[in-house]
């Protein structure tokens, strides 16, 4: 019999925090994590001593670990976790924390992610990301993720006929959203000509297909909906979550990331379908991966993402296309910047803000249901971890 996950029940995500991104910082990753924890406690009205669980995602924490941080931050905890999951780490950290709370292992879990964008730490990360990568990918131009994702992008374009302009439409929509996000690193108006003429990095990828590494942190709290109500905190409920790892093993450059393999279970657990999603947050390390998510999560058929992007307003405000689906309303990593593993949290913190009516100038009126997906961990020639969760705003 096929495995099926037990339902997520009574789980709240609340108190989203963002430590503003900067291009470079003298502060350590630990500082960014500490500032995020401080803001979390402040926003939630919780004393630090009440936090009893902590999940930390970072690639630049060494020589420290999440255990070191308990001492650094003066915490005594009953549950800790340090998911090393790249761009799938936000969604999966929320799922892990939800299970800990649901099982009574912890009451208030602080989920934190930060990195500090030191160029040498990025090179060391890329060079030794994995054995396969070190031995069989890095020696071929030492291009890091740009190299692998350029191969994926060309394969997608050749198979489905997508063009530079199709990826450009996505990037322009996210830049438009970023203009309403004071935290976004890139806010200047972007035209299709700017996009198309940005310098080549790893053809067909151009500079504006690549995220800007920066320093920053994201975080949120996980607790029961009952506790969130008692604390009078605006919250969203995590009603479904799925993940898979190394699911796409075809001996070819892949055209999908793995979401299609759990999509039915995800929507079934949430009791809804793609047409019920009011706001969508995909992991946008590169535009082609967003196209994979649109297809894998059922927003369009395989190979149809370019047409979907042409026919859909992905911006905060509709411009009158056939369909309006606000997507990556913070600007996503492509415009807000990628603070390392915090990039995997970006969709979650923004989704919590949207569904609790606290997205300010970016607020989508009536947004009730969000889907947040993640993708991460290129071990050799493809990303291995796919994840997605569905969140709903609380009845008021």
């Amino acid at each position: 019999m096929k495995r099926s996950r037990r339902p997520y029940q009574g789980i709240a995500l609340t108190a989203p925090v963002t430590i503003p991104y900067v291009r470079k910082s003298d502060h350590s990753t630990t500082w960014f994590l500490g500032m995020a924890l401080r803001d979390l406690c402040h926003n939630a009205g919780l004393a630090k001593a009440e936090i009893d669980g902590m999940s930390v995602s970072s690639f630049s924490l060494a020589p420290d670990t999440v255990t070191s941080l308990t001492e650094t931050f003066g915490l005594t905890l009953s549950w800790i976790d340090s998911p090393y999951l790249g761009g799938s780490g936000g969604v999966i950290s929320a799922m892990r924390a939800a299970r800990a709370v649901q099982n009574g292992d912890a009451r208030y879990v602080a989920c934190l992610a930060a990195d500090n964008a030191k160029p040498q730490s990025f090179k060391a990360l890329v060079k030794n990301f994995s054995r396969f990568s070190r031995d069989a990918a890095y020696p071929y131009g030492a291009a890091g993720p740009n190299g692998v994702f350029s191969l994926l992008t060309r394969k997608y374009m050749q198979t489905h006929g997508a063009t530079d302009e199709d990826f450009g439409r996505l990037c322009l929509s996210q830049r438009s959203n970023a203009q309403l996000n004071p935290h976004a690193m890139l806010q200047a108006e972007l035209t299709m000509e700017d996009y198309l003429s940005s310098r080549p990095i790893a053809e067909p990828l151009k500079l504006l297909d690549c995220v800007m590494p920066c320093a920053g942190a994201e975080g949120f709290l996980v607790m029961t909906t009952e506790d969130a109500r008692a604390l009078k905190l605006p919250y969203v409920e995590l009603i479904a979550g799925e993940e898979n790892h190394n699911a796409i093993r075809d001996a070819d450059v892949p055209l999908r990331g793995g979401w299609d393999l759990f999509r039915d279970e995800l929507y079934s657990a949430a009791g809804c379908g793609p047409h019920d999603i009011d706001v969508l947050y995909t992991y946008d390390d590169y535009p082609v991966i967003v196209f994979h998510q649109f297809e894998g999560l059922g927003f369009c058929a395989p190979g149809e993402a370019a047409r979907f992007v042409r026919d859909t307003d992905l911006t905060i405000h509709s411009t009158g296309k056939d369909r309006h689906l606000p997507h990556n309303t913070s600007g996503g990593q492509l415009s807000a910047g990628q603070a390392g593993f915090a990039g995997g949290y970006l969709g979650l913190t923004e989704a919590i803000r949207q569904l609790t009516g606290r997205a300010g100038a970016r607020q989508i009126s009536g947004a009730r249901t969000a889907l947040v997906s993640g993708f991460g961990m290129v071990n050799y020639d493809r990303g291995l971890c796919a994840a997605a969760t569905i969140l709903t705003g609380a009845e008021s």
Partner: protein
Amino acid sequence: MSATISLQRCNDCARPQYPMRELCGHCLSPNISMTNVDAHGTLLSWTRLHASMEPYFHDQLPCLVGEVRLVGDVMIMAHLDLAPGNPPPQSGMSVRLSLRPALDDQPAYFATPEQGA
């Protein structure tokens, strides 16, 4: 043409594998040995790199890199060995792999288009 390259193969289930590892990725057998396999394969996708984190590559930019599938479904990243002035690579083209020293003087795969392919 009988060009070959040396790859790991499982002595128990006979599957070739790449990248190298200490056991068979299919049956988990530790009985692995090196064996010669046909060096001809298909170019699946390629890129022209304009940036690299290694100074070694800087005076070679832009450089061509691709991914090749050999018989046995082995996937190998390789430098593309195309003389300047040649037409750009085409996904699906037939290539032959060979080893030559590259970054850090370590042997690396180079894919050369097959004549008349």
